[in-house]
């Protein structure tokens, strides 16, 4: 009986979604907002080859700031929840093969993450992807060396310093540039080179570091309550 009602609700939801599908006739050209972003003079004003990065960092930079704040809050709440675990942790030792391979691979993975977020304005990639890759390197550390103490202080400092630099650069754009999160505070450079697009690579690198530190904090919170046996 209960399932019957749920089926009715979901069918109603599907009927609600149907007009959205019916009126959708396949875009033939860009919407007004997107064509504003893709105009030649606006692209040259921002000078970033990857338009998604331009939208995320400058045009819709406040969204990114709110997103980073939400992530910080979730990381803080998770750390608060999982902090006091008085249980005895019992862990099995890892083999030589695994630890050696992890030692070899971890620097390479972190380097890949840094490459991804430094090149975010030229190729697909950016702060969020790079942060996720760095967090997966941290997961490898946590799995390979579970008895090593996690350096909370370092990650805390990294997170707060990159957050402060992000907000500071944004405010600097308001002071000496055109507006909040304006990227013209640094020289724009030539289109398509690494040192271009003004402050976008700097801001996105700090976003990447912040996201990486927050995701690592969340993962460490979950790892610290594990035990084999």
């Amino acid at each position, binding site marked *: 009986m209960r399932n019957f009602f749920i089926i009715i609700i979901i069918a109603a939801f599907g009927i609600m979604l149907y007009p959205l599908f019916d009126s959708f006739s396949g875009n033939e050209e860009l*919407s007004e907002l997107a064509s504003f972003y893709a105009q030649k003079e606006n692209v040259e004003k921002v000078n970033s080859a990857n338009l998604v990065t331009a939208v995320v960092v400058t045009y819709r930079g406040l*969204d990114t700031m709110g997103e980073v704040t939400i992530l910080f809050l979730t990381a803080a709440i998770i750390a608060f*929840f999982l902090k006091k675990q008085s249980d005895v942790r019992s862990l099995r030792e890892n083999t030589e093969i695994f630890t050696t391979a992890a030692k070899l691979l971890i620097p390479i993975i972190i380097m890949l993450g840094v490459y991804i977020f430094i090149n975010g304005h030229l190729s697909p990639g950016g702060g969020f992807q790079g942060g996720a890759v760095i967090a997966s390197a941290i997961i490898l550390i946590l799995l390979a060396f579970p008895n090593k103490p996690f350096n909370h202080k370092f990650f805390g400092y990294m997170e707060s310093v990159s957050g402060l630099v992000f907000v500071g650069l944004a405010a600097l754009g308001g002071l000496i540039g055109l507006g909040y999160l304006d990227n013209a505070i640094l020289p724009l450079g030539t289109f398509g080179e690494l040192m271009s697009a003004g402050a976008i690579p700097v801001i996105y690198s700090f976003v990447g570091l912040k996201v990486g530190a927050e995701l690592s904090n969340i993962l460490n919170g*979950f790892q610290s309550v594990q035990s084999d046996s």
Partner: protein
Amino acid sequence: MEYVALITGFLVIMAGLWAIMTQKNIIRIIIGFSIFDTGLHIVMVALAYVKGRTAPILDNMVSVEEALNKIVDPVPQALVLTAIVIGLGVTALMLAFAMKMHKEKKTLDVRNFKDLKW
């Protein structure tokens, strides 16, 4: 192609909603939530697609002058980019709650949590 993606997204959303409403185990409800999330992302990316165009990255294949006629809509993609990361944060938060609840009541069945029911 965008029609196929749109239909897939809607069906995945409905599947996630079904899982959220019918399952009894909290972990399964959270899995349903993450499926729902993925479906929403598919729908948003499908709405951004423009027929026969490439990704919004300007290089020697797509020059600045012809960008208007060659790229897809970058705005929904940017929104989905942040939504995925928030989705991970929210999922982790829900799982932490689930762990805490399991520690209190020694069970994962939602029917046993009646503290706020009246």
